[in-house]
């Protein structure tokens, strides 16, 4: 009983760690070569030496750009209190120049306890920004502009980017502009004037190497000795976990999982599912947790749907495939029925059902979203006449039929028939 409670507490602790990005990325901030230290060096030099800097953080989604930036900003705010103010803008929200300037003024007002008026015009806001930059420059306060989704700011006339980067060229301001984007060619999107004012510093957030992943796993999953959990439980948990991590099969599973996407966010999701599937009764992690996590990520929902279909529904799907292979782009229930009849006339199978039964099967396929109507127009028409399209690819259908529990060979062969073109024996079922 006690073990179960401990296991639950351990699960909660690990899950809360996995959901906390600053905890996760603190492990990666140690080495001097990491993006964390480079970013910290640039920002601290612009705070202490009062030189203006601009840089871009680039990397695929979920690789930790915002998390590392937040870590660096928190550390700098602790080191130099009252010397930094941070203005955050997002390309999805503040795409329009007017909106962006208003947001900058509002955040500056909040930061410095001034009154913000919603009626201020674009002109007023830009004058306010220039005046604030000058004041903060004289007072040695650095303003850090964080622009998320930087590539969205580079649409249109790029006025906001021009004003910000131009302000960095003047001697009176003390500011840093940091752009975060998932597009790796974000600086090619800038206009030539804006690009000339941008100092071409880029920090790439590439997917982590295997040593870094191992270090990360140990940092996150090993229980700390000084937590509320009793020492002997924690040590046993850790030894079991380390034996799992050192297992060759675990390394295979991890490599298999990371071969499709290797960002840190992806890895954290995998670990979360694995931690959640720890068996509370036994109380300790095992290799099976990771195996279930992998299989839950490799599910094929449409193929599983095929497993639940009836044989008639499989026939209808096979007929639809045959129609597609005959280059018939649009088809409805009537054309499918014609094809179905032609198969039965040709091969005399025993799966000949009446039309209304087939219509019921067709409607069930519609409900399960394996096929759908291809336009929204004919609402008044009956189901038989509206054109449909198939939502499942032929690979998935083929795999699904192969895995079907008791598929009649005729259905399988009819399906294969449209691709191989061999004549087949009639009446086999």
């Amino acid at each position: 009983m006690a073990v179960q409670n401990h296991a639950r507490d351990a699960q909660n602790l690990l899950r809360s760690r996995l959901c906390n990005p600053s905890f996760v990325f603190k492990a990666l901030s140690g080495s001097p070569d990491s993006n964390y230290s480079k970013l910290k060096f640039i920002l601290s030099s612009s705070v202490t030496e009062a030189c203006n800097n601009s840089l871009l953080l680039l990397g695929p989604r979920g690789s930790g750009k915002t998390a590392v930036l937040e870590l660096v900003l928190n550390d700098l705010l602790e080191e130099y209190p009252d010397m930094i103010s941070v203005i955050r803008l997002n390309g999805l929200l503040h795409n329009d120049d007017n909106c962006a300037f208003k947001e900058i003024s509002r955040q500056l007002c909040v930061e410095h306890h001034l009154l913000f008026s919603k009626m201020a015009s674009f002109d007023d806001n830009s004058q306010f920004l220039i005046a604030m930059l000058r004041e903060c420059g004289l007072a040695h306060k650095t303003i850090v502009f964080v622009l998320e989704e930087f590539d969205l700011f580079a649409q249109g006339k790029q006025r906001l980017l021009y004003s910000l980067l131009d302000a960095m060229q003047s001697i009176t301001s003390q500011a840093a502009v940091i752009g975060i984007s998932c597009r790796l060619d974000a600086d090619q999107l800038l206009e030539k004037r804006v690009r000339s004012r941008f100092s071409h510093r880029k920090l790439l957030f590439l997917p982590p190497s295997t040593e870094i992943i191992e270090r990360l796993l140990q940092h996150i999953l090993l229980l700390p000795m000084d937590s509320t959990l009793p020492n002997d439980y924690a040590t046993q948990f850790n030894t079991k976990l380390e034996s799992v991590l050192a297992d060759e099969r675990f390394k295979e599973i991890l490599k298999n999982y990371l071969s499709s996407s290797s960002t840190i966010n992806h890895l954290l999701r995998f670990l979360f599912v694995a931690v959640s599937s720890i068996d509370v009764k036994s109380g300790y992690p095992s290799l099976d947790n990771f195996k279930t996590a992998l299989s839950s990520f490799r599910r094929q929902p449409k193929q599983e749907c095929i497993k639940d279909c009836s044989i008639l529904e499989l026939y209808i799907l096979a007929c639809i495939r045959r129609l597609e292979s005959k280059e018939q782009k649009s088809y409805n229930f009537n054309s499918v029925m014609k094809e179905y009849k032609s198969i039965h006339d040709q091969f005399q199978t025993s799966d000949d059902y009446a039309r209304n039964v087939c219509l019921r099967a067709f409607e069930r396929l519609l409900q399960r979203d394996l096929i759908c109507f291809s336009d929204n127009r004919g609402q008044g028409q009956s189901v038989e006449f509206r054109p449909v399209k198939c939502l499942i690819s032929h690979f998935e259908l083929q795999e699904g039929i192969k895995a079907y529990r008791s598929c009649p060979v005729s259905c399988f062969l009819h399906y294969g028939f449209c691709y191989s073109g061999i004549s087949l024996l009639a009446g086999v079922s």
Partner: protein
Amino acid sequence: MPSLAVSRSVEESLTPQKRRLRSNSTAAPETPISAPTKRKSPRRCLESSPSSHPTVSTRNDSIGPVSNSSKSLAEELSEDFSKKLNWNPSDASQVSAVKEALHVSTSPPTIVCREEEQRRVFDFCKACVEKEQSGSLYVCGCPGTGKSLSMEKVSNQLIKWARDGGFEPPEVLSINCTALTSSSQIFGKIVDNGYVKVKTSGTIAPLQHLQNVYSQKQQSSSSKMLLIIVDELDYLITKDRAVLHDLFMLTTLPFSRCILIGIANAIDLADRFLPKLQSLNCKPLVVTYRAYSKDQILRILQERLMVLPHVVFHPQALELCARKVAAASGDMRKALSVCRSAVEVLEAEVRDSTNNMDSDTQGNSVVKIDHMAAALSKAFRTPVIDTIQSLPQHQQIILCSAVKFFRGGKKDTIVGELNKSYVETCKSRMIPPVGISEFLSMCRVLNDQARQSRGDDKLKRVTLTVDEADINFALQGVRFFRNCLQ
């Protein structure tokens, strides 16, 4: 020229406050180098007249008899190299002084390599002020060639000259057109700043008001000339080009008293957008700022580094930087930024070596060619190859199958076809392919990284945005992909 020395001192008094504050702050230690006069170059000191600024004498005399202006630049530089003190890169104040000297926002005491263009603009403005006539001028050139900087200097020069020569110094108004919400606001700005006397209330449009004022003889004959500097002129281009026309036409009105200087990037803006002015015989004078050549960039960099008492850069490193930037774009900002990042590369190296207790590299390091080469490659290279090599395996397979698919000359395809090609590639190499939903999410990731552009539905089109050669080069190290791509 005495006016240059005087203008420099005025400029010093305009912005001394930041310098003083900075040297008084507790963050940076006080050294003789961070005195307010650090921006003066020793060559200037020797050439200036006896009435120069008294703070010149407090300058550190460790420079010695370096600058005899009859010697050539290369000889001077090599002399400087041998006579100057060595730079200690681990001293933070010296590093910050270097970075400050190289920062884009630090405006140099004089602007070298632009004397010819500045002289032309200055002569034009002088003529306008002397004859009390209006005129228009168009300055064009690539970004980073010193246009806005020169115009500031010229306007200061003009004011000094007018004051000395007994003329009425003109009022200067600088407008940057990116700050305008609509292009016709520019006239409002000209009127609002009070330079044009507003006699009536604001019921008529600013443009009309200006046109009225300039069409009638002024009562007071001693009203000031107005020098309007309009930056980023192409923001005023509208579909019917009315605003641009009206602005330049203001200078053609009979009693107009404004000198208009427009700055933009396009060389033929005057021809393309202001054809009417040609027929009125008042086409603006065009001054082109060509992109900097290698020698010019080198000279400007050396001029900036003259203010420092130490040797920071190996002369060949500077030459490499100048050559590369001149070949690429001739943009001065880029050259300065590359030099700064070279200093940072050196700083990082020194820090690593002090961590490793390596004592023989200390105290003797300047920025050498390899530092500069590293900084140049960081600035000029695109991260395409690196990112392709760092992609997970299945995404690389998708890129390979896309390359093979598009080799036949097709430009784009649907996601379903790409999936088929991907599965075939996987099957031929005995790798289990991933399912369709994972395939779609991988395509979405590649789309976000701008490697492929696609839509969301299975039937949307997909095209490859990365060059095939890049993919070939990036993946050639792995035998699997080499076989795939054949």
